[in-house]
C-alpha cells in the first residue's frame, strides 16, 4: 500500500472517531487502531501506547468533575470552593467515555503513522515537505536519545527510576535536539539543500489497491458523519 493511501485511511479513522456520536462506534475505531499499532515492535510501540492510554484515561477521570451536564446523578460529593458541588451523572460518564475514546483513537492513529509508515516515501509525495520529514523523525530520535542517556547513566551505576528520575532528562533532551538540529542543518546545506532546480526519485505508480483504500477512507468519514 502506498504511504499516502495509508495516511488517508488513518486520518479517516481518526476523523470518524471525532465525528461519531455513538460510544460503541468510537470504541470499535479505537480498537481497530490499537490492533494496527500492535504490528509495531513491542519496544517501540510501548511509549506511544502508554502516552495515548494515560492521556485518554486522565481525560475520562477528569471530565465528570469539570463538566456539568445531565440530570441522572450516580454520585454526589462535597462542595469544593471554586468548583462547586462535585457530582457524577450518567450523562457526564457517557461524555467522558466518548471523549476519552476519541482522544485514544486520534493518539493511536498518530502512533500507527509514526511507528509503521515509511515517512520518506510519504513525504516524497509532498515535495516541499522535507522539514516535515525531519519533524516526523523527532519522536523516534528523542526516544533514542532518552534511551542513550539512561544507558549512559546505568553505565555509571546510576539507575533512572520513576517520573522524577526521567524528568531530569528533559533539559538534556531538549539541548540534544537543538544541537542535533544545528548539525543536521549544516550537513543538509553542505549536501545542496535549498538549491534551485531540485529533482526527485521517480515515485512508484499508484495502484488500484491504493485507490480502493482511499475510497474506503472516504466511506469511513461519510459513515462517521451520517450514521456512527
Amino acid at each position: 500500500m502506498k504511504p499516502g493511501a495509508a495516511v488517508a485511511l488513518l486520518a479517516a479513522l481518526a476523523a470518524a472517531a471525532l465525528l461519531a456520536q455513538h460510544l460503541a462506534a468510537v470504541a470499535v475505531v479505537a480498537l481497530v487502531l490499537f490492533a494496527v499499532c500492535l504490528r509495531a515492535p513491542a519496544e517501540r510501540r510501548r511509549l506511544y501506547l502508554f502516552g495515548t492510554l494515560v492521556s485518554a484515561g486522565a481525560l475520562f477521570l477528569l471530565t465528570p468533575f469539570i463538566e456539568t451536564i445531565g440530570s441522572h446523578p450516580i454520585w454526589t460529593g462535597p462542595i469544593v470552593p471554586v468548583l462547586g458541588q462535585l457530582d457524577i451523572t450518567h450523562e457526564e460518564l457517557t461524555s467522558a467515555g466518548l471523549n476519552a475514546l476519541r482522544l485514544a483513537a486520534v493518539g493511536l492513529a498518530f502512533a500507527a503513522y509514526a511507528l509503521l509508515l515509511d515517512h520518506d516515501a510519504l513525504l516524497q509525495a509532498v515535495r516541499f515537505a522535507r522539514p516535515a520529514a525531519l519533524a516526523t523523525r523527532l519522536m523516534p530520535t528523542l526516544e533514542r536519545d532518552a534511551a542513550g542517556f539512561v544507558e549512559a547513566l546505568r553505565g555509571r551505576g546510576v539507575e533512572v527510576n520513576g517520573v522524577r528520575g526521567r524528568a531530569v532528562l528533559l533539559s538534556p533532551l531538549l539541548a540534544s535536539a537543538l544541537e542535533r538540529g544545528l548539525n543536521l542543518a549544516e550537513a543538509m546545506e553542505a549536501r545542496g539543500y535549498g538549491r534551485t532546480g531540485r529533482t526527485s526519485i521517480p515515485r512508484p505508480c499508484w495502484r488500484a489497491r491504493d485507490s480502493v483504500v482511499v475510497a474506503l477512507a472516504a466511506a469511513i468519514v461519510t459513515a462517521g458523519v451520517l450514521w456512527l
Partner: protein
Amino acid sequence: MALARADRLTFTYPDAGTPALRDVSLEIEPGEVVAVLGPSGSGKSTLLRAFAGLVPHFHGGRFEGRVEIAGLDTRSARPAELAGTVASVFQDPEEQIVLSRVIPEVAFGLENIGTPPADILRRAHEALASVGSEHLADRAVAELSGGELQRVCLASAVALRPKLLLLDEPTSQLDPGGADAFLEYVVGLGIAVLISDHRPRRVLEHADRVLFLDAGRVLLDAAVPAAEDWLGHNRPVWLGASGNGRVPTQGEPLCRLEGVQFAYRGGLPVVDGVDLELRRGEIVALGGANGTGKTTIAKLAAGLLAPDAGTAELRGRAAMLLQDPSRYCIRERADEEVAVGVRGDRRRALAALAELGLSGMASRHPRDLSTGERERLALASVLVTDPDVLVLDEPTRGVDPQRKAALAELLHDGSERRATLVVTHDEEFVRIVADRSITLGRESLLV
C-alpha cells in the same frame, strides 16, 4: 590550475577569543589526496568547513582572506551552490542523516543538485556498492550500527561525484578492513581529497601530501616522505608506537561470559555462543568487523544487557563508556556531570577531570566542549566510579595521538585495580594499551 585555494585565510568563530585558523595559504590540485593532521582543536575541521563554504556562511564569525573552489569564491557562493563540486562527510554520522531509509538518504544530495530523476536510483545504488554496503539499501537508518551509518554517509558523498571530497575522521567507526577498503576506493576515484584523521598511519599510506596544523597555523605542508621525516623528528607519536612493553598482572576473574547469546527485540541473535573472561589487572582489546556484535558483548560484560542464553557472571562493580560522548551531557557543568556517578562527590570529580587534562573546564557546560574534550569528559565520568570492571566502547573517537598515548598511560596506571575491556577499531591504540586482543568474526574467539 589549482582546484581549490585558500589565500591568507584567518577565521575566528563568533564569541571566540582566538582565531581557529591563522593566515592559512594552500592550494589543492585535482586528484591530490591531502592528509590533514594535528592535535584536537588545531583547526582541522574548520579548514575542511572553509573549503565546503560552511565557514563563514553557516557559522558566522570573522573571515579574512579568500577561499576558492573551482573558481567559485566561497564568500559569494553558498555551500548549497558548492554541493556537487564539493562533498563532505563529518565526524558524527548520526548527525548527518536526514531521512529514515538508506536509499532515499543516499539519494538526498543527488536530488538537491538536480540529478536527472532516471539516474538517481542507479547512482545511489552504485555509491552504496562502492563502499561495500549494497546490502543496506533497503534498511531503515535507525537499525544501522555506527559503522554502517558512516558508510551510508560516505556513499551519500561519493554519489555526488564531487571534484573535492572533504572527509573529517571518515574511518573512525570503520573496522580496519573497511577503513583500508574505503581509503583505497577514495584514492581510486581520482578526485581531490582532503582527509582529517586521528589515525595517521593508515592515511599516510594513501596520501600524496600532508598538512600539519597546530593552533590554527599550518606548521607543515609537504609530500608524504618529507612529512614522515618531519613527524619523526617533531611529533613522533603521530607515526604510531610499536607496543607497550607492559607485563600485565592477572588476578582473579571479574567477568565471565559463557555460551552467551543475545538478540535485540526478538530478532536474530547478534551474538551467539560467546565466551569471554576478564581478570583483574589485564587490559583486553575487542575488535572485529562492523556489525559483529562488539558493542553488544561489551554491554553484556558490563551488565547493561542480560543474555538470552548462557551465563554472564560479574564480580564487583562494572562501569561502561558508551560510544557517543554526547550521552554525558546531562548536567550544566562538567564537574557536576562527572560527579553524577559518585553521588555528587565534587572532590573526586575534580580529581578525575584533572587526570584527563580537563582541570580548567570544571565550570564549562559539557556541550560547550570540543569533540575531543567531550570524549575525555565522558571518560572521566566513567573512570571516577573506580569500577572493578571497566568497559570502554570506542574511547579514541576524536582523540588525537598525543591524547591517546596519555589515555593508554592512564589506563595502565590504574589497571591493577580492575579488569579493562576496550572495544575499538583503532589498531594503534590496541598496540599501545592492550595486554591481549580478541578479534570477532575470525574463527572462534576469546579465551
